[in-house]
C-alpha cells in the first residue's frame, strides 16, 4: 500500500517539518514507515483479541484447497474463522460439504481423537481431519489476512500544488490506492496510534524527567543560567484549545 500521503499527514500531526527556524526533520521516513506498519498490526491484534471482527471486513479471504493440509505460510494466514470440509463419498456421487471447527494449539491435541470434522492448527500447518482418516479430499477455508504493508515510494512534500489541475476533486479517497481497513480507520485510529508511539520520544517520560531534573538542579546552583524547561509551546497546544 502506498503510504506517502499518510506520511505527510503524520508529519503534520507531529509538527515535524522543515522550516527556517527549525533544525530539520526529527523522525526519518523509514522510522515513520516502520511505526505505521506496527500501529496497524497493533490495531489488528486488538480487533482479533477483543472480537471486533466487523472492523476487519476488508481482510477476509476464502480459498479452495485441494488435499488434506496446507502450510499456513502459503496463505499469509492470520486467523482461520471457519472451514468447510469437502468429503469424498463413494455412495453418493457428488462430494458432501460439512462445516468444521478450527482448533488452535492446545485445543487441537485435546480434540485429536474425537471423531468429528475439524481443522487443527499446529505450529505452521493446518490439517483437516474427518471422521475416519483419509476421507477429506479438499476444503474451503475462510481466514483473515494480514493488512497490506504500508510502503513509502517517492514521497514529496507538497504544501501548495504548483499546478491547480492536479487536485482531483472527483476522487474523495485522498489517502489510499488500496486499503486493508475502512478509510476512516487510517485517519482515526492508525495515524493517532502511530503519533502516540512516535511521540513517546517527545513527551516527558521518566527518563527525560530525570534529565530535566538535572537542569532544574543546575538552575538552583547557578540562578543566572536561565533555562526554561517548558519552552516547547507544542506541549501545551492541547490545553489551550
Amino acid at each position, binding site marked *: 500500500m502506498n503510504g506517502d500521503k499518510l506520511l505527510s499527514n503524520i508529519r503534520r500531526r507531529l509538527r515535524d517539518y522543515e522550516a527556517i527556524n527549525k533544525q530539520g526533520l526529527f523522525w526519518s521516513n523509514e522510522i515513520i514507515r516502520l511505526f505505521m506498519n506496527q500501529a496497524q*498490526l*497493533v490495531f489488528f491484534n486488538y480487533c482479533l483479541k477483543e472480537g471486533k471482527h466487523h472492523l476487519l471486513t476488508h481482510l477476509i479471504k476464502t480459498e479452495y484447497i485441494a488435499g488434506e493440509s496446507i502450510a499456513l505460510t502459503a496463505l499469509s494466514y492470520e486467523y482461520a474463522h471457519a472451514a468447510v470440509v469437502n468429503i469424498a463419498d463413494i455412495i453418493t456421487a457428488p462430494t458432501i460439504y460439512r462445516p468444521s471447527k478450527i482448533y488452535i494449539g*492446545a485445543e487441537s*491435541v485435546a480434540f*485429536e481423537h474425537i471423531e468429528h470434522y475439524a481443522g487443527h492448527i499446529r505450529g505452521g500447518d493446518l490439517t483437516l481431519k474427518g471422521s475416519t482418516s483419509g476421507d477429506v479430499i479438499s476444503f474451503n477455508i475462510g481466514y483473515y489476512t494480514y493488512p497490506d504493508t504500508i510502503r513509502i515510494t517517492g514521497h514529496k512534500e507538497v504544501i501548495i500544488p504548483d499546478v491547480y489541475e492536479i487536485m482531483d476533486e472527483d476522487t474523495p479517497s485522498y489517502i489510499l490506492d488500496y486499503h486493508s481497513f475502512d478509510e476512516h480507520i487510517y485517519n482515526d485510529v492508525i495515524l493517532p496510534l502511530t503519533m502516540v508511539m512516535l511521540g513517546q520520544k517527545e513527551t516527558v517520560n521518566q527518563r527525560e524527567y530525570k534529565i530535566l531534573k538535572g537542569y532544574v538542579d543546575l538552575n538552583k546552583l547557578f540562578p543566572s543560567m536561565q533555562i526554561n524547561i517548558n519552552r516547547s509551546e507544542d506541549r501545551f497546544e492541547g490545553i489551550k484549545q
Partner: protein
Amino acid sequence: MKPIEVLHIIRTLLDSGREWYLNLPNVEQLIHDSQIKVIEYYLRIGEERPIRPLFVYENIDITTTSKNLIELQHPLLEPRNCVLSLYKTNIGIIELYNRQLAYVPPHKLISYNSISNNVSNLVDDPSTMIAQRLGYWTYKQSWDVSNQKDITTVEINDHDNALLLMGGYRLNLEIGYVRVPNKFSIENNIGLEVTKEIQYEVAAVAAESINNMDVLEYERGLAAPPESGARVTLDKTGRPI
C-alpha cells in the same frame, strides 16, 4: 519484523544515544526475556493465536522407551496437553483407547504410582479393562553440557508396563507444548518468533525494562563504584555497607 527493525523501535522509544545506552548483547537478552514475558501474558489470558508458531506437537512411540526419560525436541516453556494412546498391532493397527494425562509437579509424581498391575485380567480383553485407568505426567528441565542447551525430559506414570511386555501393543504419547523461542540475535539474523501483530508489544516491553534499568538505577547496586578504587567494606552477612 526484521531483527534490526526491533532494535530501531527500541532506540526510538528510548530516545537513547545521548548519554546512556546498553550494549548489544544486553539488549538482545532483554528482548528475548521480553518475548517470553509477552508469551506468558497471552497464555495467561487464554489466547494462543498470537503465539501459535511456538506451539509444538510431538507424537512419540514410547513402547520400548524408559518412561522417565522421554526427551523432547525443544525446551519446553509451557505444557499444554498430553495424551496417551494404546494401539493393538497384532492384526492391523487398532486404537484401543486414548486418554488425557493429568499433570502433577515433578516431586509428586512418585506419589501417583500405579495402583494395580493385574496381568491376568489384561490378557483377556485389554480394551475394556484399561480404559478406566488414570495416568499422570510431569516434566523436568536439565542442562546439556556437551551441546550447551536446555533439555526437557518428560516422565509419565501409568499402568501399561505389563501389557507392553506381552508384545503386540504400541503405546504413543502425544504432547502439545509451547517451546522456548530461539535467542534473539542481530548477528545470526534470528528475529522474534511470535506472530507479527504482537512484535511491537515485545519491543515496547523491552524498551520499558531498559528504561527502568536506567531510571530506577538497577545497575548501580554497590555502595562504592568499582572504578573509584575504594575498598568495599562488607558486613557480616556479606553485603556492602
